[in-house]
């Protein structure tokens, strides 16, 4: 039996499941969405490390599946996300979402197992094509447009990756992925391609644009996969690239400002996602074994706690119809379970001791300090305080407490609560027994997060960040939640670029009209002029006396003579 399952690539079960869903209905279809991740996970446990499914394409020897500790960890993670997301979405009968989410997870698993650039590219594009349906599934005009922008950006990333990969293969003659130096066009193209999916500054706005537009359940899948595949690709190909430290620091810091003033709570989470990826990118940039471990461990934890927070906001969205902080508050009375589970997620992302963020974020911060980047460490500390501020306090506070909005809704459906419960249990389990996660990391770990100094300093940081929140609120300095849109990098292509194009169009149009007018004016003026001199008895039409002709001829000859004379000298 196992041999049968091992005879096809590990991601294929998801595609088979997605295909089967086309023909299935009702409870059976729902069951398939959670049965596939479980079955595939069990099969995955039997896979040994190594390279499998070699194939040849246009003279290149490609490896469809390459299994090592790094790719295996991400594959486990995606299975977990698929299972939790599947349970969370059990009540959804929308075929499009069910099929898209299974195929999307399959593509994510395919991407992390891809042994060469070409296979990676194929799954890279499949990730984009399958996930966009989760955004369109909201079926609103704004989600349609947002999905279009998402697709353009994602496909652009794929095209860049393909171009870079082809150049690289041409230069090196090898299709294998491996640590790249940023010294050639090919490496830069690949770097930017991964950077787009990873949410590098100015390339990030597809995350905050599209994720909050998806359905309550769709976002849970979205936030687990695409960016984490990019983090994996960075860890595999650009570990130790100094530039990543700077990029990571910017990513960790700037979104928290936006998160403080953003009103849509799922968009706040999208910003905090960029902030968390910033930590991972820093870890990859430092590049030591410990730092890579930290980055990968943080990616693992982030999928779970960010998923948990996204699920809790999804539950609010499902019941209330929106997640605008300005119109929420007091929901703890009607959604107590969601409240508690959301707080567990908030504690985890804020890295409270005994919660999962605590055991992974600190590895990156410690490595930053050991690598001698004191300023970088201070910035990460700032980002760590900031993330508590917006994701740890703001999200639960404005949704479930704050001013009583008088909203009276039902608790989230049971399947949502169960999914959130699994997420929350994992957060606490990993936070309390970090060795479970540490044993899965690509490099051996010799680190214990629980010592007195670490616990004390972290608690001080968090409590005094909370104190700042309390103080600012009491002084009335905390920015109120306002229904609004904040301009971000997407403004460049949603407002500036169209405005520039419109401006160019206008200039060209004006120029064109001017040329047309000038031509028609000069032509008509010329015709009129000719007509005037061609009237009866006018200059050109009347009869001339013979002596005029002789004078004219003589003048002409003098001119010709003069001209010839001048030419001689």
């Amino acid at each position, binding site marked *: 039996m196992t041999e049968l399952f091992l005879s096809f690539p590990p991601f294929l079960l998801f595609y088979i499941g997605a295909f089967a869903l086309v023909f299935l209905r009702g409870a059976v279809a729902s069951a398939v969405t959670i049965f596939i991740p479980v079955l595939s996970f069990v099969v995955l446990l039997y896979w040994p490390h190594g390279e499998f499914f070699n194939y040849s394409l246009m003279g290149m020897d490609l490896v469809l599946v390459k299994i090592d500790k790094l790719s295996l960890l991400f594959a486990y993670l995606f299975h977990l996300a698929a299972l939790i997301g599947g349970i969370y979405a059990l*009540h959804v009968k929308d075929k499009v979402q069910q099929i898209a989410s299974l195929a999307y997870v399959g593509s994510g698993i395919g991407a992390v197992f891809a042994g060469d650039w070409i296979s990676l590219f194929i799954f890279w594009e499949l990730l984009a094509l399958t996930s966009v349906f989760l955004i369109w599934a909201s079926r609103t*005009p*704004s989600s349609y*447009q947002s999905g279009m922008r998402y697709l353009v950006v994602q496909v652009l990333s794929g095209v860049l990756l393909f171009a870079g990969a082809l150049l690289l293969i041409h230069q090196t003659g090898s299709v294998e992925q491996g640590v790249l130096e940023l010294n050639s066009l090919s490496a830069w193209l690949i770097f930017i391609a991964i950077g787009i999916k990873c949410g590098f500054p100015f390339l990030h706005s597809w995350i905050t644009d599209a994720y909050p537009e998806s359905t309550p359940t769709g976002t849970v899948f979205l936030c687990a996969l695409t960016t984490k595949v990019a983090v994996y690709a960075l860890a595999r190909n650009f570990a130790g690239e100094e530039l990543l430290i700077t990029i990571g620091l910017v990513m960790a810091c700037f979104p928290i*400002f*936006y998160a*403080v*003033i953003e009103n849509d709570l799922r968009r706040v989470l999208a910003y905090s996602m960029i902030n968390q990826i910033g930590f991972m990118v820093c870890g990859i940039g430092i590049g030591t074994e410990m730092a890579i471990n930290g980055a990968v461990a943080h990616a693992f934890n982030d999928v779970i706690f960010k998923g948990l927070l996204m699920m809790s906001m999804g539950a609010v969205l499902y*019941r*209330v*119809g*929106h997640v605008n902080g300005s*119109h929420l508050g*007091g929901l*703890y009375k009607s959604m107590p379970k969601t409240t508690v589970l959301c707080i567990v997620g908030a504690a985890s992302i804020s890295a409270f001791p005994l919660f999962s963020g605590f055991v992974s974020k600190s590895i990156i911060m410690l490595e930053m*300090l*050991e690598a001698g980047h004191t300023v970088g460490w*201070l910035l990460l*500390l*700032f980002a760590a*305080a*900031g993330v508590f*501020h917006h994701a740890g306090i703001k999200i639960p506070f404005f949704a479930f*407490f704050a*001013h*009583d*909005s*008088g909203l009276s*809704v*039902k608790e989230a*459906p049971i399947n949502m609560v169960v999914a959130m419960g699994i997420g929350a249990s994992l957060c606490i389990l990993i936070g309390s027994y970090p060795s479970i996660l540490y044993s899965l990391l690509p490099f051996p770990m010799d680190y214990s997060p629980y010592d*007195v*100094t670490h616990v*004390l*300093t*972290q*608690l*001080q*940081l*968090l*409590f*005094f*960040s*909370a*104190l*700042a*929140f*309390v*103080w*600012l609120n009491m002084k009335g*300095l*905390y*920015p109120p939640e306002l*229904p*609004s*849109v*904040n*301009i*971000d990098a997407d403004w460049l292509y*949603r407002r500036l670029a169209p405005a520039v194009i419109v401006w160019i169009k206008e200039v060209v149009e004006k120029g064109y009209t001017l040329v047309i007018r000038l031509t028609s004016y000069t032509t008509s003026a010329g015709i009129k002029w000719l007509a005037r001199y061609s009237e009866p008895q006018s200059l050109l039409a009347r009869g001339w006396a013979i002596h005029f002709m002789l004078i004219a001829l003589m003048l002409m000859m003098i001119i010709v003579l003069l001209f010839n004379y001048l030419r001689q000298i």
Partner: protein
Amino acid sequence: MNNHKPSGFFYQPNTIRWILRIFYALCVLLVLADFIVHRHILTNIEKIPAFYALYGFVACVILVLIASQMRKFLMRDEQYYDTDSSESITEKAEVNHD
């Protein structure tokens, strides 16, 4: 949103008062602990007494103050990007009470 009096455990003035009191007490204890526990440190900055507490507080105040200022030039009304502007949250709301 509506003008009813907030009810519920977490809206009682007494509850809020006690939560804050306990919270302040914990803050004080954490700072005191800083003088008792010998922290092992890696940089000179960490030698400052209660460095993490100070840093956390100052960082968050600066964060919020800068963010509020950012609103002045970043904030637009909700329909800013809507091309057909026919949608508002009330119309989009699709509530599920099964």
